């Protein structure tokens, strides 16, 4: 399976979510939070149609002369968002597009800034390779057990996990 941004994000958020997504078990979100998220995305940031850019298996919210910009609903899981963005930077770099990453949160709870800048360097690029290797192993193995975390109640797998 090709690694994509969502998988990287899920890997940090919840290993089980990552496994389920990788094995193509995507379920409906009963509370339609996914839809709300999507709608928000569209209304708040993407007033222009088709501003999302797809390159190979990544889709980028916005690409400017200097930045790759990723919009997130909230800053609940910065670590996950950061690595997802670093992954995009790496894919782009391989195509000869060098950029800096910018994360923009619609709601900030955890930290004071609305924007975080991330740069791809030797160190985190190696770390990223490691992460991708780990993900590949994770999704080939058995499904990880349920572990209740903060994000469960909003997760599309919630009913599946806790039935």
């Amino acid at each position: 399976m090709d690694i994509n941004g969502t998988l990287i994000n899920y890997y940090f958020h919840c290993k089980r979510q990552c496994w389920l997504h990788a094995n193509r078990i995507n379920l409906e979100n009963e509370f339609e939070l996914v839809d709300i998220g999507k709608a928000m995305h569209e209304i708040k940031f993407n007033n222009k149609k088709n501003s999302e850019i797809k390159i190979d298996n990544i889709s980028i919210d916005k690409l400017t002369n200097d930045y790759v910009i990723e919009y997130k609903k909230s800053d609940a899981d910065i670590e996950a968002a950061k690595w997802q963005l670093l992954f995009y930077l790496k894919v782009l770099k391989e195509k000869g597009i060098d950029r800096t990453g910018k994360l923009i949160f619609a709601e900030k709870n955890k930290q004071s800034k609305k924007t975080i800048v991330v740069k791809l360097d030797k160190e985190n690029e190696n770390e990223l390779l490691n992460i991708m290797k780990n993900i590949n192993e994770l999704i080939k193995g058995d499904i990880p057990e349920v572990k209740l975390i903060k994000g469960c109640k909003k997760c599309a797998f919630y009913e599946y996990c806790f039935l």
Partner: protein
Amino acid sequence: MKTKYLMSMGTLSRKDNSLDFKNEKGHNYIPITEIREIYLMNEISLNTKLLSFLSQNNIIVHYFDYYGFYRGTFFPKEHYISGKLLLKQINAYENKGILIAKKIVLAISINIYNTLYHYYRHGNNEIYDYLNYLKDDCKNKIEKSKTINNLLAVEGEIWQLFYKNIKYIINQNIDFSRRVKRPPDNPMNAMISFGNSLLYTKTITQIYHTHLNQSISYLHELSKSRFSLSLDLSEAFKPIIVFKTIFDLINNKKINLKEHFNKKVNYCVLNEKGKEIFLINFEKRLDNKFDHKSLKRKISYNSAIKYDGYKLIKFLLEEKDFMFFNDKEKK
């Protein structure tokens, strides 16, 4: 609004991003986003432009004829597919089929028990023996079944005894001694047939929104229908949804045996008004919400059908033991 019933004759077509149902009274526009499934309950014309629009939006169409007999389902392209799960489903058919089938029959017996116990507590002592049978005898027989045929025989016995006991539950005098399906011969059989078909189609819709392949079943024969798995998964809900609706309609005199049926010498079906009354009450029951013990959330019976699908997926993927829907899930 997730389900739309079209009861009158007319034409259904696409108008921009809405559905347009045109009948005698004029145009009726229905926004597509509010719909998950459509029931055509009468002679309704449609075209392929509409079908592809429905398909794009993952909307399922079930159609019944004027008499209330299920005719078929228009099934959009599947939107959830998992090769891994499909393999597991097939594998389970060969190795664990009987185990899953036993769980279905057990769920039927538990849910009938819980449905009838309510009446026993309110003084219907005649059903005492049947309740006992469900608790002991029947449970043993299910456990001991070695083949699907054994199991089907037990299932047959459960329902047969259930039908015999119905007369102690209802307070109106309906001549109902045995289940006659094609065509139903009295109001009770007419309602059972209609209710079971509706529940079956509701299950098709719910299973569509999971990754399960509808043609692989465990209790019912594979070749029984394109949606055999929905036959399987609807069983547990029959007592709770179909029969509770019927008992309520009769005992609370919501349905009138003289007014709401079409009776001929060799058949009996619900008439237009009868179908409408049935549908309203059936939907109400499905939409009823209760506190779910482990989910710690309010869920409807309709969602509970889908969640039984989730449980099956979990069993196939993770070998997690499970039980199909029963009262223990309620808080």
